[in-house]
């Protein structure tokens, strides 16, 4: 199976540039001159960015997808290697909530299988036209590209985003049929009073990247229904390449709040401690924390504990009920960081034997007061709690708090 269907088209909305076989060949020639096997790729949403990705994939060289605006030199240093596992195809940085930044190792088969699974449940055909709404170093953004390339569909490259006129002009001009958004973008669309009737070709909205409020799920499902289109609520994680479940739009009303059914070829079960476990051919090979890990084969055996808590109803629909605990310690006592966040307007991270919390834009006096309150709530001495004022919390592309960045700033 090839990732790039011969009929697939990629068009840059701003420049009119299109992806050609020559562009991929040229990217391949460039790669041949670079030391291998690993390909470092700060990937921009451009024709050349995609050509380099596809060239690496075609050559069977693993490609590490990085944020082109971030400082990425440390990744290249840390993972410099002359040996990799032959199955290894794509590496994403994790958005994991604790510990060191690491990579998710995806095999060629996992990437291709998941693109096929997604294309099947979303019924992607050669007449579909997607538009970029998310960065390509983010697994959801990349999966939109992969699943459309696989089916010979069209992908429009747009870089300004939904808050700008250019995006909506491109959507009309190119007859976009499908748009993918994460929860905070749905909040923005509501603010923009999004009206699908303005984009006559639009038939599908997809949602992943975290839980969307059920009120917004119903709202956008209704908006799409007025034009004969659908909202697809989905569930996944980078570790699953990344999609695991989709809620069929016709079941959206009677299964409101569910993330849907496992993708074809996948299945869910719930562990004795309520954790959602996914099984499927798209599960990662494992993580990589050092260059030596890139030589390793499959360590997961197709089984992925998701870290989410959930339940499955009698028809197989999965409902996520929470996140398995993020744990910190204060004076040797384990505390649930999520509970701290539920009770105080802060982002909490573990800091050795202290609890570190970040609060947006608070004064020194407010920080002292908050510290006292949290320590009282925990039943611990105030010296176990550190409150830091931060102008704004760092966010991941999906709008969730970037705990890794917070921990890195400790």
């Amino acid at each position, binding site marked *: 199976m090839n990732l790039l269907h011969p009929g697939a088209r990629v068009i840059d909305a701003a420049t009119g540039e299109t992806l050609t076989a020559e562009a991929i060949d040229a990217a391949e020639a460039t790669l041949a001159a670079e030391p291998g096997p690993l390909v470092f790729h700060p990937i921009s949403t451009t024709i050349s960015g995609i050509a380099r990705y596809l060239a690496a994939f075609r050559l069977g060289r693993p490609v590490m997808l990085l944020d082109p*605006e971030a400082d990425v030199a440390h990744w290249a240093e840390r993972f410099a290697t002359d040996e990799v596992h032959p199955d290894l195809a794509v590496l994403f940085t994790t958005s994991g909530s604790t510990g060191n930044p690491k990579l998710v190792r995806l095999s060629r088969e996992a990437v291709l299988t998941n693109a096929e699974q997604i294309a099947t449940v979303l019924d992607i055909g050669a007449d579909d036209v997607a538009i970029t709404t998310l960065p390509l170093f983010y697994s959801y953004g990349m999966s939109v590209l992969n699943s459309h390339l696989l089916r010979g569909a069209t992908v429009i490259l747009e870089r300004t985003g939904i*808050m*700008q006129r250019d995006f909506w002009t491109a959507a009309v001009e190119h007859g976009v049929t499908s748009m993918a958004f994460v929860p905070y973008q749905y909040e923005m669309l509501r603010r*923009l009073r999004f009206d699908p009737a303005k984009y006559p070709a639009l038939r599908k909205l997809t949602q992943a990247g975290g839980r969307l409020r059920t009120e917004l799920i119903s709202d956008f499902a209704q908006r799409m229904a007025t034009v004969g289109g659908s909202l697809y609520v989905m569930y996944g994680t980078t570790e699953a390449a990344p999609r695991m479940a989709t809620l069929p739009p016709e079941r959206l009303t009677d299964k409101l709040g569910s993330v849907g059914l496992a993708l074809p070829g996948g299945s869910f079960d719930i562990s004795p401690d309520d954790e959602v476990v996914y099984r499927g051919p798209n599960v990662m090979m494992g993580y990589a924390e050092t260059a030596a890990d890139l030589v390793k084969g499959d360590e997961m055996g197709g089984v992925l504990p998701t870290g989410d808590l959930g339940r499955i109803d009698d028809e197989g629909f999965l409902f996520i009920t929470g996140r398995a605990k993020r744990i910190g310690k204060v004076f040797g006592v384990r505390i649930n960081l999520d509970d701290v966040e539920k009770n105080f307007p802060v982002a909490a991270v573990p800091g050795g034997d202290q609890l570190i919390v970040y609060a947006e834009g608070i004064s020194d006096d407010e920080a002292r007061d908050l510290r006292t309150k949290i320590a009282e709530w925990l039943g611990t001495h105030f010296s176990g709690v550190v409150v830091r004022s931060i102008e704004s919390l760092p966010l991941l592309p999906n709008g969730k708090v970037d705990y890794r960045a917070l921990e890195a700033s400790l």
Partner: protein
Amino acid sequence: MTELQKLREAFRTALDLPADAPVDDLHYQDNEKWDSLAHMSLIATIEDEFSVMIDTDDVINMSSFAEAVRILGKYGVTIND
């Protein structure tokens, strides 16, 4: 504070710029801090500051400081020094 100063201040707040940063020539494409989230915050700040409700078309058209001045004019807010 003049209306012009208020608008400059709104841009600096939303885009997380220093108090003396020049903003009059800012354009969406040129400033990496001016992303979609910052744009939401900018619109909210302008709406609060000038007590206006900005229409969808104007929200997505507000792609520069100069456009913001022009659009606010439509809502009866004259940006003078």
